[in-house]
Structures are given as structure tokens and as C-alpha cells.
């Protein structure tokens, strides 16, 4: 009887721990980049506009990395090899990539199109969301990023 009670108690304590799944932001490692401007890009290797955006994003990471810019990509390919092959082709194997073949993270983010990007400010709040990509958008997105990067780091929570 006592053992049963103890087991029930243990279950009660463990239940919330088991139930609390990591948030989508946690799953892509966003909390690790507090105080940085984080660009989360959902892409797939079969999606032409995504393929257009990635080399540009990779270049941004190189240019703005020192100022506190972080790129996290979420790949939606069923087969990870296809994604890796594409990154290799454009010479961007150093890009952070989370693989989400079943769309669990995408669903949590409420994704409606590919590519979609979410831009978080230094304060960790979602500041911009872009659906689709065209080279024409590059300039305005870069302006937004400059604006976010110019915000003081001290404000970070």
C-alpha cells in the first residue's frame, strides 16, 4: 500500500515534467541566442525561392555575424540528404539546420508557405515575418536587420 502511494506520488511529481514539451522556439535553440538578432528560415531543397534565399542568408551570416546576427534554418525536406547536398552545393555547410521532415515545428509556427522566415530582435520578441522570397525583398529585409542590430544589447531580457 505504502509503495503504491509512493508510486502515485512520484507520478504526480513527474507528470508535469513529462507533459511540458519544449516550445517550438526551444526546439530550434532560440533561447541559446539571447541578445542576438535571430533569423529563422523555413526552407526545402525542392522549393525554388528558398534556394534563392539561402546563399543570400549565408552571406548575411558572414557579414553580420560579428554584430550579433544568427541564422537558424529549419529544413522541411523528407530526406535530409537532399538538404545536405544543396548546402554543400552552395558552400554553406556551416549553416545551422534543424531537420523537421514531419512538419512538427512548422505546424507549431503556423507555417502557411515556403519559404517563411521569422526575425527575432535582441529582446527575443518576434519582430518580422516574411512569407515567400524574391531577390527584390533582399534590400528591405537587410534594412530591417540593420535596424534590429542597431538596438542596444543591454535591453536583452
Amino acid at each position: 500500500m505504502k509503495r503504491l502511494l509512493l508510486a502515485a506520488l512520484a507520478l504526480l511529481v513527474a507528470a508535469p515534467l513529462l507533459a511540458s514539451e519544449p516550445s517550438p522556439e526551444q526546439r530550434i535553440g532560440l533561447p541559446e541566442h539571447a541578445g542576438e538578432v535571430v533569423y529563422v528560415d523555413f526552407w526545402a531543397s525542392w522549393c525554388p525561392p528558398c534556394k534563392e534565399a539561402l546563399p543570400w542568408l549565408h552571406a548575411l551570416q558572414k557579414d553580420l555575424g560579428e554584430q550579433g546576427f544568427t541564422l537558424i534554418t529549419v529544413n522541411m525536406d523528407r530526406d535530409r540528404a537532399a538538404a545536405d547536398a544543396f548546402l554543400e552545393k552552395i558552400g554553406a555547410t556551416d549553416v545551422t539546420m534543424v531537420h523537421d521532415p514531419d512538419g512538427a515545428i512548422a505546424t507549431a509556427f503556423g507555417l502557411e508557405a515556403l519559404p517563411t522566415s521569422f526575425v527575432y530582435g535582441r529582446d527575443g520578441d518576434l519582430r518580422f515575418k516574411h512569407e515567400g522570397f524574391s531577390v527584390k525583398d533582399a534590400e528591405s529585409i537587410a534594412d530591417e536587420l540593420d535596424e534590429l542590430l542597431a538596438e542596444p544589447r543591454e535591453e536583452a531580457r
Partner: protein
Amino acid sequence: MTRRLLLGAALLAVIALTGCASMGVEPWERDLLARPAMALNDDPIALALDEHIYFSKEASTGGLGFGGGGCGCN
């Protein structure tokens, strides 16, 4: 009798509606649809050629529009 019929019709309508409950492909599930082979027109030049031949051969019946006399000279 009419009441039962009405109920039946309503039931059928509800069942039919549930068929639309899970419509739509999620954006990340469109990889197969994105393949070139899935395009309605994957080779525009070949299609234009085919259509020109069709138009010229079938011109006597109007072809793809209504002009032409079947001379094949269009």
C-alpha cells in the same frame, strides 16, 4: 415520412461535409507537386509545336479557334 427523409438528407449533408475536413496539402508536403514532371506544361516549346500541328491539321473543323481553311499554312 417527410421528417425521416429530411433527417436522412441532413445526415447525408453532414457526412458529405466531413469529407472536406482535412482538405489541403501543407506547404512542406508539396515536394512531389514541385517536381518538373508534375507541371501541366513541363516543356513549353514541345507544347507550342504540338499545338501548331494540331491547329494546322484540324483547321477544317475550326482547329483551336474558328478561322482557317485546312490548308495547313498557318
